[in-house]
């Protein structure tokens, strides 16, 4: 039985949540196409095979090699290419994260196969697929002429859910042949900058736009974010002004967020910001302009000045928390 092979993205032995989306997509696609779901994990096995099983993977290829004990795009891409050659899957799926797209591109280059990044819809049989352009504000339908179809699924396009009938998650050792030279792109060092919640994992993100007015004026947003266990984000105009670091930027060229609640303060909602925020489960827009894009697209809005409203919300939160 031919298969769908899922690239499991991991960091130091932990599976990336994005891979749950790839596995969920692969399971549903495989069911409609009559294919088996298999997966490949990298590095020493650390429970990821069983985890992939809960999302429906039948066989999990455990690729182990000294070069795979930390991330390196060339070693991972070459390993994936060898696994594809040996197991001849019909379709290979990753989640369209930085690493997912990079490793798929490396494998595609090595096999000289096409690779379709950030799919939002795939026909059973993979005859046609729809992919994101412009960070998701435009879609492209494509066909693929390829023996094995390589694709990534757009982040947040498919909601992750464990399988009703879990897969066996049976481990199969896979020993790639890796030239020593491939170690040239392996991670050599890491700098940990934040512990705790990050922009992409925070349950609440408070975004500030041009309307905040200055770098200093973010202090009330920071205070409220801290009270709610959230993080402060910002728009592209803000990083271009030098008010916040680029790592805080939400949007097409920044971070894609998907919090329970996004509070967008003084953000007009240009399309390149919207595509980074639209996966939020709920959006509250705070803006003086009741016709701003962010206001009309949000589920909830307050029409008013963030400079007086944010401190008032903070005071009300403290009151209810008894602080």
């Amino acid at each position, binding site marked *: 039985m031919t298969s769908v092979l899922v690239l499991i993205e991991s960091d130091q032995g932990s599976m990336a949540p994005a891979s749950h989306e790839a596995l969920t997509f692969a399971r549903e696609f495989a069911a409609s196409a009559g294919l088996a779901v298999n997966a490949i994990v990298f590095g020493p096995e650390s429970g990821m095979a069983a985890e992939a099983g809960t999302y429906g993977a039948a066989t999990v290829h455990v690729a182990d090699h000294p070069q795979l004990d930390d991330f390196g795009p060339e070693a991972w891409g070459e390993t994936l290419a060898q696994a594809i050659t040996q197991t001849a899957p019909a379709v290979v799926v990753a989640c369209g994260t930085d690493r997912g797209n990079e490793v798929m591109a490396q494998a595609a*280059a*090595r096999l*000289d196969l096409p*690779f379709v990044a950030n799919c939002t819809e795939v026909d059973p049989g993979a005859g046609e697929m729809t992919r994101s352009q412009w960070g998701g504000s435009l879609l492209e339908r494509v066909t693929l002429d390829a023996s094995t179809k390589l694709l990534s699924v757009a982040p947040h396009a498919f909601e992750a859910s464990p399988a009703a009938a879990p897969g066996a998650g049976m481990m199969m050792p896979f020993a790639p042949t890796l030239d020593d030279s491939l170690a040239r792109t392996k991670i050599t*060092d890491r700098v940990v900058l934040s512990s705790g919640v990050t922009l992409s994992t925070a349950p609440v993100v408070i975004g500030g736009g041009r309307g905040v007015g200055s770098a200093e004026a973010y202090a009330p947003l920071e205070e409220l974010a801290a009270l709610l266990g959230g993080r402060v984000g910002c728009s592209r105009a803000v990083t271009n002004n030098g008010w916040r670091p680029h790592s805080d930027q939400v949007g097409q*060229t*920044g971070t894609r967020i998907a919090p329970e609640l996004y509070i967008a303060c003084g953000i007009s909602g240009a399309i390149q910001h919207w595509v980074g925020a639209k996966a939020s489960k709920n959006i509250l827009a705070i803006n003086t302009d009741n016709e701003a894009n962010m206001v009309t697209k949000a589920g909830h809005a307050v*029409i008013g000045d963030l400079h007086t409203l944010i401190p008032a919300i903070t005071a009300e939160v403290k009151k209810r928390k008894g602080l």
Partner: protein
Amino acid sequence: MRILTLIKRVPAPGARINVTDDEQSVNTANLGFTMSPHEECAVEGAVQLIEQHGGESTVLTLGPAEAEEQLRYAASIGINQAVLMDNGGEDWDPQRTAKAIGDAIEQLEAEDGPFDLILFGNESADSGGFQVGVRVAHRLGRPMVNGIKGIEVSDDTVTARREVDAGVEVYELPRPAILGVKEGLNLPRYPTMKGRLASKKVEIGAVAAVADAGGQAKVRLLRPVETVSETVVLGTDENAAPAVVDLLEELGVL
């Protein structure tokens, strides 16, 4: 040191993107053009590295003749040489694009010597294929890392920093190397009047754009379905604070 930066002419991001009647391309009637934001930072990065280490920088694009505008913009902020691969503005698939660019780099290197560093944008702002740089690197047999927001160059190596969720990953690549860079690498400068004038005199070199189509074919472009949500207005000004906090409680985020 010699640095090559690859850029792509794209409609300016920010505006609503509409599709032509034949659903084959973006309707650019009311749009301005720019290079992809990641690539603006790549160009600025190349200029800064040459300022620090000396040498020469080149910018190369595959696109329509009008992409001369983006090549001259790069020259106006300090890039020394510009090369256009005119493909008539056709929308080429990633394999075809990478093949043509790989051929062009081999030709440029045969004429003027190897590039120590080649910079791509992490992905183009429009088609967003996330792969052309990686394919070119594999073809040239060079190390490549994507998603880079910090670059330092020494005699033998290039140190590249990649921002991840909770910190930074560091990579040490032997030269010559290829990097895919992201916005945030730097804050690109604006061209000076002197730079603008000088860029008008830069001779635009030409390399033929020839490659067979790859395995991905476009059927059509379409706009995503927009879910229209009715916005519930919780109030105006600070009087709305209790209603906002009610919402926080309701969503379980208080």
